C-alpha cells in the first residue's frame, strides 16, 4: 500500500534516501596504527597521525579495504579496482587535520542492490549508489565544563564505510526495513558490528515530499540518526513539516536538520551564511588505491551465506514459512542457532517444527528474560534433545513446554527433567486399558449419556484418564482405546 501523507489540500508522497555510516571492524584505524577499541581512556587510542601533528602522514590499513570490498560484494555491487582518496575540508574541534580523508569522485564500491523485506513475503529492491571509505571524526563533549568543550580523539581516524542509497524508499517503514537489512548484511559478513547505540552505525536521512504525479520536492537531510525507531519518527515529522510549509504556500530550503526525539521535531542545524564549501580535492599524501581480481575473489570467498540466500533456502529446501525464515535470518546468531539445532537433531528431523519452537518458545523465553541468544541457557544441543523427546512421543507437546521452562530456568537437560519429574507419557495400551475400564465402570451415568448422543462427553473421560495418570498418558493412545470402548 502506498504511504501517503494527507494534507489539507490533498495527498503527498514521500521520497527517502539514506547515507549510512558503518564503522568497519578492524584492529587498527584506517590511516594509523592506533587501536579502534571502544570505551578507552580519552585520547589514549590516538597516534600522532590521528592528532594531525605537523609532518604526520596517512598509510592505509589493508583490512579496511578488504572489508569495504566484502561489503560491496555482499550487496552485489560493482567493485572498483581503482579508487581515490579526496580531502573534504572543514574546520571542527574534533577534526584534527582540518579535513576528512574520504572518497569523492572515485569510490571503492559502485552500484548495488539491497532487498528489503516488507512482511507477508513481499520484498523491494533498494538501489545503492556507492560505498566509500572515510575517516571518522573525534568526539566533542559540550556539557562537561561551563566554558570549554572537551575533545577526545579516540574515534578519530577509525574507518567508516559510507553506504549511499538511491532515493528509492517511499515510507518510514521502508527506510526502517532498509537500515535494518543493511545492518543484518554487515553483521553477517563481520564488516560492522551494527551497534547503533554506540554509534557504530549512523544514518543521514534525506527526505522530500511531492504531490502524486508531480516532480520530487526539495530535500532536507536529517543528520546523525542512530536508532531505527527515531529514523521512522523523524521521517514522519519531517515529511509532515514539509507538507505544512508547501500547503501554506512556502517553499522548502535544502538544508541540514537535526531530529529532537524529546520534542518530536526536526530543526535546522546551520544558518545559511555559514554554508559549507568542502573544497574536495585529491589527497596528495595518498596514491590511488588499486587491487587486482585475485584480491576481490579472495574477499568473495571469505563471505558466509548471506541473509537473502539463507532465507530462500530455509523456505524452499526446509519448508519454513516465509515469516519464520525472515525472523531466523534477521540476526546471524539466530540463524546460526537454528542451524546448529537442526544439525544436533540429525537428518530427517522436522525443520518446520524446530523453527516454530525457536521463534515461539525459545524467543519468547529469551525476550522475557531479556537475554541475547548467545547467552541462552538452552543450547542448540539441549533444544534438540527436547524436540527429539516430543518427536519420539516420549513427552507430549504440552509437557514439552513445561520441561523447556524448567530447562531455561535450571539449565538442566530435557531427559533429566522428564526422568526426575516422571513426565514420560504412558503409551502402554495394557496399562491405559485398565485405567479406562475402571473409569467406565465408575461412571455409568456419563457412559449412558454419551451413548445417547452426547459425544462431547469424551472430553470428560480423557480428562479423567489424564487425572488418573497424573497427566502422563499419551493423548493419542488414550483416544484410540477410549472411543471404541465408549461406543460399545
Amino acid at each position, binding site marked *: 500500500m502506498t504511504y501517503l501523507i494527507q494534507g489539507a489540500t490533498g495527498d503527498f508522497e514521500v521520497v527517502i534516501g539514506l547515507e549510512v555510516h558503518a564503522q568497519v571492524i*578492524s*584492529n*587498527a584505524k584506517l590511516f*594509523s*596504527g*592506533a*587501536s579502534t577499541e571502544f570505551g578507552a*581512556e*580519552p*585520547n*589514549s*587510542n*590516538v*597516534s*600522532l*597521525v590521528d*592528532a594531525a601533528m605537523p609532518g604526520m602522514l596517512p*598509510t*592505509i*590499513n*589493508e*583490512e*579496511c*579495504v578488504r572489508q569495504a570490498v566484502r561489503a560491496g560484494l555482499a550487496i552485489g555491487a560493482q567493485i572498483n579496482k581503482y579508487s*581515490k582518496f579526496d580531502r573534504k575540508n572543514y*574546520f571542527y*574541534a574534533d577534526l584534527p587535520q582540518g579535513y576528512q580523508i574520504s572518497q569523492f569522485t572515485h569510490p571503492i564500491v559502485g552500484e548495488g542492490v539491497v532487498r528489503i523485506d516488507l512482511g507477508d513475503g513481499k520484498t523491494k529492491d533498494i538501489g545503492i549508489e556507492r560505498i566509500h571509505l572515510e575517516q571518522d571524526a573525534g568526539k*566533542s*563533549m*559540550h556539557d*562537561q*565544563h561551563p*566554558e*570549554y*568543550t*572537551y*575533545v*577526545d*580523539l579516540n574515534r578519530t581516524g577509525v574507518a567508516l564505510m559510507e553506504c549511499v542509497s538511491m532515493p528509492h524508499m517511499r515510507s518510514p517503514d521502508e527506510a526502517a526495513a532498509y537500515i535494518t537489512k543493511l545492518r543484518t548484511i554487515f553483521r553477517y559478513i563481520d564488516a560492522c558490528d551494527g551497534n547503533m547505540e554506540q554509534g557504530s552505525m549512523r544514518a543521514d536521512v534525506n527526505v522530500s515530499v511531492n504531490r502524486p504525479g508531480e516532480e520530487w520536492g526539495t530535500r532536507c537531510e536529517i543528520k546523525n540518526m542512530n536508532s531505527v525507531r527515531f529514523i521512522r519518527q523523524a521521517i514522519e515529522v519531517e515529511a509532515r513539516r514539509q507538507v505544512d510549509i508547501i500547503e501554506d504556500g512556502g517553499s522548502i530550503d535544502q538544508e541540514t536538520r537535526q531530529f529532537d526525539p524529546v520534542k518530536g521535531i526536526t530543526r535546522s542545524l546551520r544558518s545559511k551564511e*555559514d554554508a559549507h*564549501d568542502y*573544497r574536495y580535492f*585529491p589527497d*596528495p599524501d*595518498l*596514491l*590511488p*588505491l*588499486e587491487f587486482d581480481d585475485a584480491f576481490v575473489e579472495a574477499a568473495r570467498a571469505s563471505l558466509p551465506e548471506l541473509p537473502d540466500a539463507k532465507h530462500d533456502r530455509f523456505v524452499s529446501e526446509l519448508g519454513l514459512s516465509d515469516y519464520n525464515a525472515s525472523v531466523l535470518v534477521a540476526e546471524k546468531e539466530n540463524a546460526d542457532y537454528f542451524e546448529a539445532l537442526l544439525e544436533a537433531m540429525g537428518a530427517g528431523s522436522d525443520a518446520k517444527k524446530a523453527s516454530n519452537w525457536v521463534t515461539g518458545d525459545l524467543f519468547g523465553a529469551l525476550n522475557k528474560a531479556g537475554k541475547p541468544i548467545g547467552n541462552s541457557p538452552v543450547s542448540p544441543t539441549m533444544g534438540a534433545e527436547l524436540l527429539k523427546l516430543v518427536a519420539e512421543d516420549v513427552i507430549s507437546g504440552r509437557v514439552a513446554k513445561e520441561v523447556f521452562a524448567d530447562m531455561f530456568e535450571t539449565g538442566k537437560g530435557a531427559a533429566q527433567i522428564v526422568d526426575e519429574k516422571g513426565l514420560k507419557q504412558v503409551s502402554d495400551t495394557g496399562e491405559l486399558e485398565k485405567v479406562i475400564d475402571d473409569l467406565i465402570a465408575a461412571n455409568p451415568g456419563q457412559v449412558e449419556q454419551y451413548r445417547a448422543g452426547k459425544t462431547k462427553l469424551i472430553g470428560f473421560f480423557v480428562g479423567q484418564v489424564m487425572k488418573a495418570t497424573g497427566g502422563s498418558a499419551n493423548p493419542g493412545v488414550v483416544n484410540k482405546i477410549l472411543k471404541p470402548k465408549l461406543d460399545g
Partner: protein
Amino acid sequence: MSEIDKATVAKIARLSRIKIDEEKQAALAGELNNILGWIEQLEEVDTDGIEPMASVVDTKLKWRTDVITDGDKQESVLKNAPKAEYGFFAVPKVIE
C-alpha cells in the same frame, strides 16, 4: 575569469578561518586579483583530453597490515596542547 571583491575576500577569509580586518580587505582583494589575473594565462593552454595529474609517483599505494602499532600515548598527544584537562583537549565552546 572572475573579479575578487571585498565580499569575496570576506567569504574566503571565513572559509579559511582567518580574521581579515575590514580595512585590509580591499587591499587584499587587489593583490589576489593581480595574482589570479596572472594565473589566468593558463586558459591559453589546450588541455582537452588531458588527465589531471595529482601525483608524480608512478606506483601503487602500499598497504599496512591490520595490527595495532601505535597509540597509548596520551601524554605525548596532549603535551603541546594550549589547554588540556582530564585527558581531553579543551577548546572554547561552540557558540551558535
